[in-house]
């Protein structure tokens, strides 16, 4: 087979707008309707509504007569388009050339992918697994041209073949009004005796062009000659997804489930880019209050939705919600290449990965500024040299060489004034007096080690220039 031969696969999501609003359908759902913009007719409905006799295109009033309880939503083109992009993201792992055909279709050029997957059947198996996992209803079909694939999918003819003759054979019996022809009145064709695609295909093209315009000819040509449709899907440079909640969430628990939906999309996005992120920004929008912002960190990157969900859960636990949440926004940038984890010799233990996971968990639960690493800087002033930096930001390369100076292991965050009379002196003084360039106010201290008789502690005392004594550290 010619490896460069193109094969198109069209996927039509018949209830995309409905499912984008309510989430993928499941059997426990009550009847749900999506109304057209004017609210007069049913645009899409879920399985529960169909079972009770509602049909697409039915007037809203008739539908209400059939249903006892129902959830309704208005058609939202923006939401539908965003969801189509998300589905493209999921399929991006399987196919590099995806074209979006709004409002609810998507075209995949799979001819060039078949060699990679080892044949059409193997490819389709993967594709169906991904689509099934997404939970969205779909119809798909292949075609030797993009338009042929679209027609087959829209007419729900599930044909999967690379054979152009077979594809044409399936198209031939289609009635003219099912061909998406760019003419106002397909009945005009019927009146001319052209009722099926087979007849139309054989009719003289120039004559048809004369009667129905050049668009018609182009459409018919596109069914026979390769031509692409739609706009090619490219990965957005950042991950930025927003989700309107169906119900206000007053507790962190109620947020976790919707957030999971966003995280699954994030996982697909990261897989498509083969990158990972180490931090995630969440914005929780309220009705009146300014939004609550959360920053979730994973050390050295986490990729799966499950890992992120756990970390987000911990962060939400820590964050009291000031008001009910109406929408959630998840944003990620600063991607980095996805490095493999170093295991031990046998590949059974991953100490580095375990350590990273532990740090991520601690940071998520306790907060970024409560998990710190002691630094060992070169500054002569003790409090500056021995800062504690947040562990996720600490620049571990600046740890200077082991100090030869004899300093205690504990410092007091603020020096405390003490009376020298309580102490037995052990050693000192050690003078620390850096140059004026380091800080404007002169810093000159004499340090002593002294035993506090009553507390039975060994203290590190500083005598200031004005002869006052301060407790600065403890030799614990």
């Amino acid at each position, binding site marked *: 087979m010619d490896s460069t031969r193109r094969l198109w696969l069209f996927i039509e999501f018949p209830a995309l707008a409905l499912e984008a609003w309510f989430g993928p359908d499941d059997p426990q759902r009550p009847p749900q309707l999506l109304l057209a913009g004017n609210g007069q007719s049913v645009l899409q409905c879920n399985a529960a509504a169909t079972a009770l006799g509602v049909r697409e295109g039915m007037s809203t009033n008739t539908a209400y007569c059939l249903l006892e309880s129902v959830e309704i939503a208005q058609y939202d083109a923006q939401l539908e388009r965003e969801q189509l992009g998300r589905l493209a993201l999921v399929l991006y792992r399987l196919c590099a050339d995806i074209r979006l055909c709004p409002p609810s279709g998507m075209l995949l050029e799979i001819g060039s992918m078949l060699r990679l997957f080892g044949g059409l059947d193997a490819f389709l198996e993967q594709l169906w697994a991904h689509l099934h996992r997404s939970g969205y209803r779909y119809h798909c079909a292949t075609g030797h041209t993009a338009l042929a694939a679209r027609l087959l999918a829209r007419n729900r003819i599930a044909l999967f073949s690379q054979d152009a003759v077979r594809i044409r054979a399936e198209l031939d019996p289609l009635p003219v009004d099912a061909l998406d022809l760019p003419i106002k009145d397909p009945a005009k064709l019927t009146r001319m005796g052209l009722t099926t695609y087979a007849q139309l295909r054989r009719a003289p093209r120039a004559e048809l062009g004369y009667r129905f315009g050049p668009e018609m000819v182009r459409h018919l040509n596109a069914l026979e000659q390769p031509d692409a449709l739609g706009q090619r899907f490219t990965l957005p440079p950042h991950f930025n997804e927003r989700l309107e909640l169906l119900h206000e969430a007053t507790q962190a628990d109620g947020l976790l489930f919707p957030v999971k939906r966003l995280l699954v999309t994030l996982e697909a996005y990261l897989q498509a880019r083969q990158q990972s992120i180490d931090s995630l920004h969440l914005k929780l929008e309220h009705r009146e209050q300014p939004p609550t912002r959360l920053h979730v960190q994973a050390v050295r990157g986490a990729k799966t939705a499950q890992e992120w969900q756990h970390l987000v859960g911990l962060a939400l636990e820590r964050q009291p919600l000031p008001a009910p949440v109406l929408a959630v926004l998840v944003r990620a940038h600063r991607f980095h290449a996805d490095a493999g984890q170093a295991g031990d010799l046998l590949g059974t*233990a991953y*100490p*580095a990965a*375990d*350590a*990273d*996971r*532990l*740090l991520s*968990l*601690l940071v998520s*639960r*306790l907060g970024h500024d*409560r*998990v*710190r*690493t*002691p*630094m*060992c*800087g070169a500054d002569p002033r*003790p409090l500056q*040299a*021995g*800062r*504690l930096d947040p*562990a996720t930001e600490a620049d*571990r390369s600046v*740890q200077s060489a*082991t*100090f*030869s*100076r*004899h*300093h*205690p*292991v*504990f*410092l*007091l*965050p603020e020096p405390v004034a003490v009376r020298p009379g309580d102490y*037995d002196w*052990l050693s000192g003084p050690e003078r620390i007096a850096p140059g004026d360039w380091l800080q404007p106010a002169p810093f000159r201290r004499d340090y002593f*080690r002294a*035993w506090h008789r009553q*507390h*039975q*502690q*060994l203290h590190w005392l500083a005598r200031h220039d004005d002869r006052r004594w301060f407790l600065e*550290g*403890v*030799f*614990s």
Partner: protein
Amino acid sequence: MTLLHELTRNGQVWTGHDWRRTRQQAQPSGHAALDTELPGGGWPLGAVTEILVHRPGQGELRLLLPALSELSRNDSRWQVWFNPPFQPYGPGLAQWGLALDRMLVCQTRGADDLLWSLEQCLNTGGSQAVVAWVEQLDKARMRRLQLAAEKGRIPVFLLRPARFESAPSVAALRLRLTSPGPERACVDILKRRAGWPVQDIELPLPLFGEGAGGHG
């Protein structure tokens, strides 16, 4: 081999007169006089050790630091300190040979946070040793801690005020530390596996470690 043999060998059961023969994994404490009294010859790995002091800062770190710095240099995972009473001072710790880049110092907001964090340290396998300054401890959760430490084979050191001496504890090893002088310590073993309590172990407690280059 009988079951009893097996249990004795693993240090689960011991007899009064031959406890020194039981095997327990331990990290030498760096204090010779103490090591001879500790089962396994050092701080138990995979168990909770409780050290009681009258006032924080009475030498409990100098007691632990030789072992902690040894652990930190030989293991790439985290050494986690919870709620130290003062701010750990990097240059001072580095002087003991502690690998600072493997250290985490955590402040928790309450007992729940602390216990959760301790359990995570032990269960994820991401830590090499845990040191926590604690006060009140729920007995049931402390038992969970002990089991998690055993499973993860990670030493856990709990530093508590001496007023909890009479409170029941599931720690495998309990010590009381007093500091009679600047570079001296006196340790009472209140509870240990495979042995009776011991009083008044006198130890020299040097102010400074031998540093990273000293050994190991």
